[in-house]
């Protein structure tokens, strides 16, 4: 049971990483790409960490794997804001999608 749940979570994680990367390639400007990376990749990482934690040999290893997620989350949230702020300071105007 745990095996299947773990496999499903790992697959879901891979799917969200894939979707985030597609978004990074497809979306039109820096701001929309940040949305894709911050949200989809973090969900992907959460799924992967949880899936691996389910297979861990001990509680300490499982907790360590789960700890990766909030740390990466905090880092990516801060970096996402830093990049968006810098882009804004440089005067990069967001793509609006309706021919301005």
């Amino acid at each position, binding site marked *: 049971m745990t095996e299947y749940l773990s496999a499903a979570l790992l697959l879901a994680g891979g799917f*969200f990483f894939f979707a985030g990367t597609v978004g990074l390639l497809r979306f039109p400007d820096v701001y*929309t790409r940040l949305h894709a990376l911050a949200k989809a990749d973090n969900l992907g990482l959460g799924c992967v960490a949880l899936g691996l934690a389910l297979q861990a040999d001990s509680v300490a290893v499982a907790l360590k794997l789960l700890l990766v997620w909030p740390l990466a989350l905090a880092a990516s949230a801060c970096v996402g804001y830093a990049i968006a702020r810098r882009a804004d300071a440089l005067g990069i105007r967001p793509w609006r999608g309706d021919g301005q």
Partner: protein
Amino acid sequence: MRRALIGGVVVRAAAFALLWWMLLEGRNDGWGLGAIALAAALLLSLRLSPPGERSLSPTGLAGFVAFFLWHSLQGGVQVAALALRPRARPLPELLEVPLALPPGAPRVLMTTAIGLLPGTLGVCLEGDRLRLHVLDRRLPAVAEAEALQRRIACLFGAAR
């Protein structure tokens, strides 16, 4: 005051010890270095954020974590759908929301956490106004920001 200080130190030391135990993956051979790391972390944390200065509410924390997990799940699913659907296009816009949160940690948490919620990304925090980039202007970004703000106010124990 003194009791709060001692309590704060004990809780933090226990939390750092737990963290080190996790990093060691439950083995028992790294506690010499661990003692140094623990002391350094404790000193730094007391220096950066003295106990008793700001208190987090436990129920507020539970509410925030639940809200955050659920909404970041939605955010990930939403952006994945937008990226993968062949004809889907984002409809972005910039907007500004006023912040009722006190300056410092609550506003910083708001600014960074909102980037992980569905459809919103913090662009610039200026005083008590936060500029947001919205991925799809048909979605209720302002309501989302309001909800997050209420959660953070509860987390930091502000009566609202």
